């Protein structure tokens, strides 16, 4: 009679680091119990298994239903760093799913996660910030982060953090939150000087993301005033000549918002913003063209700008044939503003 077990040795692809996943709907409850066990190894193995399972959104839903988040929250305070790293990884994977994000907000996970902001482990912080970044992409998630009062700590962290990958993630999170209206808090915490330093950093990703965040900062009036006060506008004009297109696009976008106020306009005109912006009109990325056209439109509101740009109206006429309809619209508006007579 054949045996079900063919050989005495385990099959080669069983992972000894993972807990055995029970069949069907028993998988998650069993893992949940293992998470709460006293044995360190059990907890670790359960976490590894959970990481694998959380890629499936149905499992995420079930996990939240049975209350895995509570056990995970308890594990965040664990002393073993592997446990913490893995827990943050699980939470990060859950945050990639919408159900996970909603579960975060309902169970107030954000606040518990913030306890780990100063964790010595880099991986832990990386996962943490990645979870925040995913959460912030949802408007309610961003609101949740703002309501937990995390913006000041995030801004402070921005300056303190040495690792650029973490900085990138924090910048992403901040920019998403700022779009949702955390601007006043952030401005109170001196976000503009920090961003100004980052604009001059060597890493082009950081520059691009910092410019993007600055764009979000410039949306409310306070932000515009602060940006003008801290003399960020000349730096932005300088960044227009950056070789990387993403940086150019974001710098043009930030300028576009900053030059809405009259002081901003004149600061930009003093910094000779118009020739680089005109050069950007020929760029290949549509975002760059769009932001450049809009920034030029803002500058054309001022009389000096208008007189300078009247010579360049043919360039705008050429852009009207652009395939992107938004660019066409923007070019038409720009021409209208330039040719406006009081």
């Amino acid at each position: 009679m054949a045996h079900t077990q063919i050989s005495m040795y385990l099959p080669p692809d069983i992972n000894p680091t993972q807990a055995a996943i029970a069949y069907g709907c028993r998988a998650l409850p069993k893992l949940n119990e293992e998470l709460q066990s006293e044995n360190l190894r059990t907890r670790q193995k359960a976490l590894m298994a959970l990481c694998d399972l959380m890629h499936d959104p149905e499992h995420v839903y079930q996990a939240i239903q049975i209350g895995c988040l509570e056990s995970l929250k308890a594990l965040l305070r664990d002393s073993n760093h592997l446990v913490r790293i893995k827990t943050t990884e699980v939470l990060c994977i859950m945050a990639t799913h919408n159900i996970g994000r909603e579960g975060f907000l309902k169970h107030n996970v954000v606040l518990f996660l913030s306890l780990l902001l100063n964790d010595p482990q880099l991986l832990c912080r990386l996962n943490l910030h990645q979870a925040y970044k995913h959460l912030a992409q949802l408007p309610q998630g961003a609101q949740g982060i703002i309501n937990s009062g995390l913006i000041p700590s995030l801004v402070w962290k921005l300056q303190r953090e040495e690792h650029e990958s973490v900085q990138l993630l924090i910048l992403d999170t901040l920019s998403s939150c700022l779009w949702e209206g955390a601007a006043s808090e952030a401005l109170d915490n001196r976000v503009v000087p920090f961003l100004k330093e980052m604009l001059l950093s060597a890493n082009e990703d950081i520059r691009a993301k910092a410019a993007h965040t600055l764009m979000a900062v410039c949306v409310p009036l306070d932000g515009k005033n602060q940006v003008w006060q801290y003399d960020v506008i000349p730096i932005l004009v300088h960044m227009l000549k950056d070789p990387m297109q993403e940086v150019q696009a974001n710098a043009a976008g930030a300028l576009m918002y900053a030059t809405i106020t009259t002081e901003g306009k004149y600061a930009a005109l003093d910094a000779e913003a118009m020739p680089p912006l005109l050069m950007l009109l020929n760029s290949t990325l549509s975002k760059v063209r769009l932001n450049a056209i809009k920034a030029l439109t803002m500058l054309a509101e001022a009389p000096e700008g208008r007189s300078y740009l009247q010579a360049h109206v043919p360039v705008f006429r050429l852009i009207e044939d652009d395939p992107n309809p938004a660019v066409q619209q923007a070019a038409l508006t720009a021409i209208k503003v330039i040719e406006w007579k009081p």
Partner: protein
Amino acid sequence: MGTYTYTSQPRALPCQRRRYRDNLLQPDDEPMRFGNIMYDRRVIRGNTYALQTLPLAGQQDPLELQRLQQAKRRALARKRAREQFRPRTPEPVEGRKHVDVQTELYLEEIADRIIEVDMECQTDAFLDRPPTPLFIPAKTGKDVATEILEGELFDFDLEVRPMLEVLVGKTIEQALLEVMEEEELANLQASQNAYEELRSIELAEVQRLEEQERRHREEKERRKQQQWEVTHKHNETAQKIAAQAFAQRYLADLLPSVFGSLRDGGYFYDPIQRDIEMGFLPWLLNEVDKTVEHSMLGRTVLDMLIREVVERRLDMFEHKYPTPGNRSWQGSSGAMAGSVGPYEFQAPGTSPTQNSFLAKDYQSRPTPDRRSLERGLSQDGRGVEEGDPTGQSTDTGVKQTAELPDVWNSAQP
């Protein structure tokens, strides 16, 4: 030597002669027999200069043609007839069929010749020593056999197929899912980026328009303010001018009217005339009044004298001839004094003592008849006196009349 091309390739012509008697069912697998061109009538041999020209194909003599055809047909018919009479195997009986049967398995050619086969034998050349055969010892022990029935052994290939399919399928499915997920995410990200761009552009546009609106509004407010001030000033100036013009006109009228009214009021006076009016004429009138008064006084005095005389005469008369009618004279004197009294009443400021004195004297004998008589008498004098409106004359009159009672009183004993 150039190449030569044939219109029709040279070929060996087949012979039309048939060797064997032909079946009506002509088999085609006989070998083609080619005719010898030496004996072919179509090939012309010998002298070709004087040939009997054959009639061209198709243009044979029709008669000959017909004859030939007929001959052919007749030959064919004859052959068919001959065929019919040839002995054949009889037809099969009813219900049976003729079948060809081969009696021997192999065909044998009947011949006299004996089949001879040459055989040889030769020893081989030196061969190599063959290898020693494998030593298989004799079998010892028991033979044990298992019987494997149909279906106990599994065919690995057959069995592994579904498992492999599942494994590979699941892996590929998972991979596909992940790839699709990534693609979806990338698409979502791209569309989100596009939306984000549009949103930021729209927001910037909105803010710019807001700002523009605000600036325009402020400018408008300022201009409106300026304009309002200008119009206000304009209005004020116009009003001032109007007021000035009106005032001028009014005052222009005013001056003559003022002058006129002043003149009418008597403020512009010729000083001489005034002086005359003020000084001279009153004095003149006073003097006239005085004169008239004097004359009046004279008359009154005369009257009184006459009266005195008359009364004395009356007294003397009455003394002589006393009558009850005497009292009337006294009454008349009283009435006369009473007529003087009204003069006193007219004049203001006469002393009440004189009045009472007079009244004491003359009102003791009042009679209406005599008073009316005296009134009639005095009315003439009064009429004269009343003509003079000036107060001075009355005063002088009063003074004079006041003097009178003293005269009268002194006159009376």
